[in-house]
């Protein structure tokens, strides 16, 4: 992969918000922040592999925050990303019940930006869990749903990518695939918990 393009913070946010094919801005994020944030996480007890995984989730969460129009450029991008990474790593550690470590390393002196991040990250666990359900769909279903809901292609355009007879067949298949996925989502324990909580 090439060294990639350079983006100012504003250009990067605009590219991540508006574009669907994000390889270039993602590459820029990796080139600019992977080393810095991974080193930070490693210093806070993450292994190299864990640091890379957390950085990947950080990039995903950051894009999600931008696409939901929840990003407010009040802090430097590096500070913001570090706070997101820290939040993800904090939750990982919490899951592993390393509570002593958490108390010692994270709880003292939490900055305002980190408290704000917690609010933005509220739905992370749910999204991470639910996207794993996609693995239970066949490849064709995953593709048709991605082309429609992410690439925002029309039925006609999807016909270019998948071997279906006509637009109606694509429409029916897409509907069945989404219903299958929704069935899985409804039965997920986190979803059941959420429904119970709402009642």
């Amino acid at each position, binding site marked *: 992969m090439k060294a990639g393009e350079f983006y100012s913070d504003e250009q990067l946010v605009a590219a991540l918000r508006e574009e669907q094919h994000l390889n270039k801005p993602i590459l820029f994020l990796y080139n600019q922040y992977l080393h810095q944030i*991974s080193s930070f996480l490693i210093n806070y007890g993450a292994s190299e592999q864990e640091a890379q995984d957390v950085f990947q989730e950080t990039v995903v969460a950051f894009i999600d925050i931008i696409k939901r129009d929840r990003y407010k450029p009040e802090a430097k991008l590096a500070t913001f990303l570090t706070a997101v990474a820290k939040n993800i790593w904090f939750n990982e550690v919490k899951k592993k019940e390393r509570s002593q470590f958490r108390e010692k390393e994270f709880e003292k002196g939490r900055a305002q930006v980190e408290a704000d991040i917690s609010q933005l990250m509220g739905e992370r666990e749910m999204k991470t869990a639910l*996207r794993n359900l996609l693995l239970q769909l066949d490849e064709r279903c995953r593709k048709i749903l991605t082309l429609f*809901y*992410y690439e925002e292609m029309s039925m006609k355009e999807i016909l270019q990518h998948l071997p279906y007879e006509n637009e109606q067949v694509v429409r029916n298949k897409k509907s069945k695939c989404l219903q299958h996925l929704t069935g899985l989502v*409804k039965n997920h324990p986190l979803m059941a918990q959420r429904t119970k909580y709402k009642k």
Partner: protein
Amino acid sequence: MSSSKEEILIDYLDNNLSPEDREKVVTLLQTDEDAQQSLDALQWSVAAIREQAIVDQVQQVRASLASSAKIVALPANRSTGIVRSFTRNSMKVAAILFLLVTAGGIIKYSTTSNTSVYMDNFSSFDIATARGNSSDDAVELAYRKKDWKAVEDIAAAANEKTAKNAFLAGMAALELKDYNQAIASFSAVLQKNSRATEAYYQDEAEYYLAMSYLAANRGAAALPILQKIRADKDHIFYKKARAISALDLQVLSLKN
């Protein structure tokens, strides 16, 4: 929740309802808890689909960098010997990076070929997308039945050598792995279009001509066509051409 009710909710979610029907769904959602939960689950499903698409792209970048990235933990307190250890560490990191980049580059270079790029990116042309006046003519029917030999025979015997006949004959040849014949047919479409006032199957013929060149191990001929398509956002196959890894094309340009 009945299947038909769920389908209405999907149409609501996809914004496919008339204002009147939309209003009815809004009323339903205010009173029907079951419908609310179904819509909630549908919205989460779509959120998961969108997020997975982003994850796929991040993982793609991560994988491409895997061979050239090495994370080194910085010590929490660097109190002594900073200049010397920093220089030494920098040299080590540079050496490791050089080796990793070189090794990754060698692996990538050796595993990428015209044929591998063709195999990774070729997908059959769907006749449903075909544009033309008669939708059920003989060549089209044979193509639908995947009777490739018949497609070639009908196209060859046709009195009128249309762009459609030539294009479908090219696709049939490509399916039969007769790559040189496919190249000849797609080139014929482009040649015909260059003399015509209206160009039919131009974008299709360009893309599949590039694919045929790759399959025939003639990457040097395929690359300029693919670069042209990748630069043209209005090209029907823009997304497909952009989906081919830039690194793969870089390797091909070195090899061809």
